[in-house]
């Protein structure tokens, strides 16, 4: 068991309970999707687990260690990372530099002020390797802001992977993409998962994507988990069907 959440609660503005006593766990190597209608609390849950927000109540354990009080930077060091729903890259830096940044920290070069970054072979090699894996190596010297939306989403994942996480939360990785781009990015995610690069937990709205890649699906509604199981189990769950307002939203 990689990560465990116990009775997480998060309240906004005094009266809106975004996450209501959520308890769950994530096992290594199990590709999990988190789905639910808008406003169900999916992004809030990711925020709580990755450190963007602190829970009001509840505990989070990672590899047996209690982490709910840790800030983002410390959680990243322990092996937790995430990508963002709204693309969150370093726009004025090149793709190469975007990937270098997390690698600098991972390889503990962060306080080196006199060495030449360009001549650091370890970092250079690994940067090129990651760029190759996400299919963006030809564009390595372009500014990140010059990429298309789909390419930027690929870069998002690349930056997160460069932190060498054990668990990686992807918040709507295919958001805003066309079918071809979606297929491409999910192929990469599945490949990374199979290679054991990280345990992926994906928040998604696209049911085709969810049902084709997930080994486990968690369904959130109103800040609570209303279903949790294999794709087959979720597909047949009547409460889930009801919540999604109409069975035609399910692909069979």
């Amino acid at each position: 068991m990689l990560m465990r959440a116990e009775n997480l609660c998060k309240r906004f503005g005094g009266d809106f309970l975004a996450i209501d006593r959520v308890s769950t766990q994530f096992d290594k190597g199990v590709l999990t999707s988190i789905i639910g209608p808008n406003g169900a609390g999916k992004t809030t849950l990711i925020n709580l687990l990755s450190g963007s927000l602190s829970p009001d109540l509840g505990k989070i354990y990672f590899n047996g260690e209690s982490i709910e009080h840790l800030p983002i930077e410390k959680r990243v060091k322990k092996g937790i990372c995430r990508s963002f729903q709204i693309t969150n890259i370093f726009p004025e830096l090149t793709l190469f530099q975007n990937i270098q940044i997390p690698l600098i920290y991972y390889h503990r070069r962060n306080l080196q002020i006199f060495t030449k970054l360009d001549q650091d072979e370890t970092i250079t090699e690994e940067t090129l390797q990651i760029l190759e894996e996400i299919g963006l190596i030809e564009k390595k010297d372009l500014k990140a802001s010059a990429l298309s939306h789909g390419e930027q989403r690929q870069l998002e994942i690349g930056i997160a992977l460069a932190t060498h996480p054990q668990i990686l939360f992807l918040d709507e990785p295919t958001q805003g993409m066309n079918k071809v781009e979606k297929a491409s990015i999910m192929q990469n995610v599945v490949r990374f998962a199979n290679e054991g690069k990280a345990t992926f937990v994906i928040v998604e709205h696209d049911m085709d994507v969810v049902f084709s890649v997930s080994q486990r699906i968690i369904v959130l509604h109103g800040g609570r988990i209303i279903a949790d199981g294999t794709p087959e189990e979720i597909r047949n769950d009547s409460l889930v069907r009801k919540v999604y307002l109409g069975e035609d939203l399910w692909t069979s």
Partner: protein
Amino acid sequence: MTEQRSQTWRPNETMSSRRQTVLVIIVFGLFAILPVFRSDYLNYMGMRIAIMALFALSFNILLGYTGLLSFGHAAFYGVGGYASGLILIHLTSELILAIVAGAVVAGLTALLVGYFCVKRTRIYFSMLTLAFGMLIYVVCYKWKSLTGGTESLGGIPRGKLLGLVDLFPLGRYYFFVLIVVALAIYVIYRITKSPFGLLIQGIRDNENRIRFAGVMVKRYRLYVFTIAGFFSGLAGGLYASLESTMFPTICDWQSSAEPIMVTLVGGVESFLGPIVGSVVFILIKEFVVRFTQQWLLVFGIILIILLIGFRGGVSRHIERLFARNLPA
């Protein structure tokens, strides 16, 4: 921090680093042969430009590289100048020691001030730096017994180099300033090209994302603030021995506005920007003063024209010229 960005600017349009090195060598060469003209005035102007270049570069580490706009940067310039001056008057005549010690004092001051300022960002950060800048200015003119207050700290010597060479003659002091500034600029350059240098640019670009790369943003801002303060103080020390006098107004907000103007005119986004800006700024200031009493007004108008006409700074346009006309 996006107003100055030109949409068509791409990294592959910059000058190659070899061409940049050549340009730097040419500029350094020009400065090096200046004393040939045996003009005290030219030497003095050359030093003013060099010192301003270092001051503005230290400022741009904060603005261009980390995205922090400081309105109180001259405070560290002043602290460095006063510290170096006082050390030369009371403790030692070894100039290198005094100037470096002055810079260290400035750096420590920046560490203390920065600790409070980096807790906030953007406008709040800028306002805090302005407030602390003015605080230091007030300390300088109130602490009469130490700084001489408004009567200024006068009689700052130029001391000796390694106990042997008397640096009082302007020609000799010129070379000292040139070499110290060149070394300092090289060190700053190496920092910007280091892993740490990329991380601070990442902080500028996306402080939220870089936390997910493991970077403790506030801490790094403090490191940068301290480094910038150190180099600002180094420039101040060189200035103190050049003018042989230090006034409290060197620490005030008007003085802090100078590196801001210099950097904007020269170009925030390039390393050479503040250097180019210093040349432009000081030459224009000298030129304008000769023609009119209303030099501030004329100067202001010229600056506005430069800022509007040369978006991205003068150095950006020079770079474009080189990138387009010569084969890559």
